[in-house]
């Protein structure tokens, strides 16, 4: 972004305070533009009225992120990469979580291709109210045969995930494009030998393209510049990902340099970067568990330091789970508290005999508890106590969770344990056990201490519910 104060953005707005954007004033809207929580298209007059057209164009230019945003694929699961404005997440936030594409070779049986791609498409891991997913498929033209590659592409395309076409052979890439014209795949890659032909394909089919120059930033920048001048906008950079020793250190350094230059304003190299941790499998590590561990280690490094899109191999849960969690960690928005509204929630259709639990309104806590309960078909009442979005353990230590708060939450929800249940009992988190006595007094109801981890609620319920008289 070329500007960083709301005042500078305000200059380009209609300044009528009409309120159509949902903000009371243009100035308020301007600050949302600066922190990127709104887009210019959210101001209807600016978009609709001709007299603002020039200002809109200029404002969009000023607001566009330092690192270009590139879209791969189409439809619901299209993957956006790049779009960042800062080197450290606490300075704003990182946008567009690192996208993880898993490889499939074009020379394996059709059924095996379909099976692997389905596995990629179906992966999910529940986390704070949503599912962490894998992002796409990188089809490797191991055969180097256009017909074979096209056949594989056709199969993969049916599943609907974004695709990367991996070949240095323009004829192979073209064959793939012919069967997936409208799927907006990413071409991998143009290098010093084939750049004219691959660049031509990117223009002809209007698809994003990777430029590749291993451990040579001058060459990489030269390719990117050449493509940009020819009118290709959606460029991704591959500086090479060495898997071990000094090579790995060089790759790490290249990622740092490219992103720093881009954020500092070198527009010729301000594009998303691709990492290829799959090369872990080329490092001579004989044991597959170790190779997989190493791939995860490489993925972690480049998730933290500026890899926007990756090509990976191992689908083992012990590889994928930490990978998707780390991307989520680095890309959560540090500006917004992740919390749910306080109040009484129903899991299933609870009645007067159903158990009553409380938890806090920290999103990680609430969704963890809620999903542990609902996944095990426990029908119950679940009270989310407003602790300013702090988890049970931290809130109990920090004072946001006490018996008065719990009582208050019951009152606000209009729920009375003695009137609305037959058992007059509340089950509390094990980590808030110290509140038990106090709560019995304040609520005038029975209080049972549940397990410390909500994952154990099902077992606990089996043993302890309904409560003995």
């Amino acid at each position, binding site marked *: 972004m070329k500007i960083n104060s709301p005042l500078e953005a305000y200059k380009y707005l209609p300044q009528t305070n009409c309120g159509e954007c949902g903000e009371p004033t243009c100035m308020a809207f301007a600050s949302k533009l600066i922190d990127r929580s709104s887009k210019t298209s959210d101001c209807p007059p600016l978009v609709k009225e001709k007299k603002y057209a020039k200002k809109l164009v200029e404002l969009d230019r000023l607001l566009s992120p330092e690192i270009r945003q590139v879209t791969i694929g189409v439809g619901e699961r299209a993957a956006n990469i790049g779009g960042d404005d800062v080197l450290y997440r606490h300075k704003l936030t990182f946008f567009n979580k690192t996208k993880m594409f898993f490889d499939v070779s074009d020379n394996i049986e059709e059924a095996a291709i379909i099976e692997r791609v389905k596995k990629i498409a179906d992966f999910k891991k529940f986390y704070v109210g949503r599912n962490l997913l894998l992002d796409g498929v990188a089809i490797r033209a191991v055969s180097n045969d256009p017909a074979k590659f096209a056949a594989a592409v056709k199969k993969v395309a049916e599943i609907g995930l974004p695709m990367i076409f991996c070949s240095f052979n323009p004829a192979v890439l073209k064959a793939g494009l012919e069967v997936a014209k409208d799927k907006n795949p990413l071409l991998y890659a143009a290098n010093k030998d084939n750049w004219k*032909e691959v660049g031509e394909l990117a223009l002809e089919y209007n698809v994003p393209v990777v430029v590749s120059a291993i451990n040579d930033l001058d060459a990489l920048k030269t390719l990117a510049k*050449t493509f940009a001048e020819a009118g290709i906008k959606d460029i991704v950079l591959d500086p090479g990902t060495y898997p071990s020793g000094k090579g790995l250190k060089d790759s790490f350094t290249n990622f740092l340099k490219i992103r720093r230059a881009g954020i500092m304003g070198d527009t010729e190299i301000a594009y998303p970067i691709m990492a290829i941790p799959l090369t872990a499998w080329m490092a001579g590590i004989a044991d597959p568990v170790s190779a997989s561990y190493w791939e995860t280690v490489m993925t972690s490094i480049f998730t933290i330091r500026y890899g926007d899109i990756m090509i990976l191999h191992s689908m*083992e849960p012990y590889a994928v789970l930490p990978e998707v969690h780390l991307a989520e960690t680095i890309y959560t928005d540090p500006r917004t508290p992740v919390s749910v509204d306080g109040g009484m929630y129903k899991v299933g259709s609870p009645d007067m005999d159903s158990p009553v639990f409380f938890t806090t309104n920290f999103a990680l806590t609430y969704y963890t508890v809620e999903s542990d309960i609902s996944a095990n078909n426990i029908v119950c009442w679940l009270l989310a106590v407003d602790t300013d979005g702090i988890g049970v353990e931290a809130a109990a230590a920090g004072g946001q969770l006490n018996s008065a708060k719990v009582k208050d939450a019951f009152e606000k929800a209009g729920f009375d344990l003695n009137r609305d249940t037959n058992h007059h009992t509340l089950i509390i988190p094990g980590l808030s056990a110290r509140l038990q006595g106090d709560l019995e007094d304040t609520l005038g109801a029975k209080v049972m201490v549940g397990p410390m*981890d909500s994952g154990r609620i099902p077992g606990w319920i089996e043993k302890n519910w309904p409560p003995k008289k």
Partner: protein
Amino acid sequence: MAKKVKLSEMTDMFKGMDILSLEGVTIEGDIEIDLSGLGGGGFDPMLAAILGQESAMLAQHFSRIAGMFGVPVGMGAPGVAPGVAPTVASALAAPKFKDLIPSKFDVANIAEWTTQIQEVPIGNTSADGGTRGKQVMLGGEKALPFYFDAPMPHRNQVTIDVFDMRIGLAKAVKENYDEVMDSPGEWAKKNVDKFNADMITIHLISTDPLVKDTSAKDAAKTVEEVLQAVDVPIAIGGSGNPQKDPEVLSKAAEVSEGERCLLASASLNLDYAKIAEAALKYDHDVLSWTQLDMNSQKELNRKLMKQCNVPRDRIIMDPTTAALGYGLDYAYTNMERIRLAALMGDEELTFPMSSGTTNAWGARESWMVGSPLGQDSDWGPREYRGPIWEIVTGLSLAIAGNDLFMMMHPTSVAVLKHITQSLFGLVEAEPVDIANWIGSEV
């Protein structure tokens, strides 16, 4: 192994490990750890969770991880890969492009990184009046870790935990530690000889009034035992009881006079002055521990320096480690901000950092048998999930600026060391030709 794998620490480790004898290790069945049964004792339930971790696969891992340093086997090796060399189809003549438009890449160093992180040694050798075989040096950075702006002077270090009492271990863990668990000295030895620990942390948890309430004098004996058993530098941890820790740590400091141990920890909720006093009187370092809050960290460091006169070269910070998926976003950014502020001249934060990386085992993904949620994709065997959870947690913090890692799982230690030393530049590996990765037989 005909490979040029030069990694001083790691080769030592494998020399010390009788890999052959680990063959055919049988794997324990699934052992469910009951978290809810622990914790009443006043010590951290997360700690208990790790102690209760299965490590049936642990021995197997050692032999497996050895593969990491092994000879390349065919996979994608140059020449073996099917022909995917760039064959340019001439049919696709390209009118739009004529010649490359040359451009040079250049990027400046960060001018604002003006301040060096304090160097802090742990452990005194005979030259300094102690009996340690070597000294561990932390800090000294002038840039973020592994950055090109300025070389990093000292590599990351790993200290492995020892406890002063037998604690609830799963059967499979017992198989590995059973013979040493009643002897902190033997336990420490094993960590150094077999698991390549740079340092040892002795946790005096039995002193907790809610555990065994052993005396400060008993604790001091344990410390002496460990000092005699190993010659690496040691960290001394209390039980976490804020009333008793100052007394226990002072006594421990007294009997280890002149060894320059790391006293863990001074914090705002206990008598930090007493711990600082012991450090000064008996020649030790202080771990300044706060909980995920940069301003509290500044406050405690300031108090240690100004109020207690602790010299700058005796302070290490622990800004708290939260596990991957359970607050790592806070821990990561807290450390990164602290390190950036220090490099830009905040003298209250220019200290090396330490991480309780074992906290990673608090995340359910690291220890639960499987997902409690039916709709999740299969979580796979947890034996492999736990160590990588600890590795990724530690590695993330290494990149954020952390220097010293307090760890427990030997596999995690081995991999974390290998990757941090790769980024540091210590690892020589045969160059890999990655140009043909597309066609490699993965």
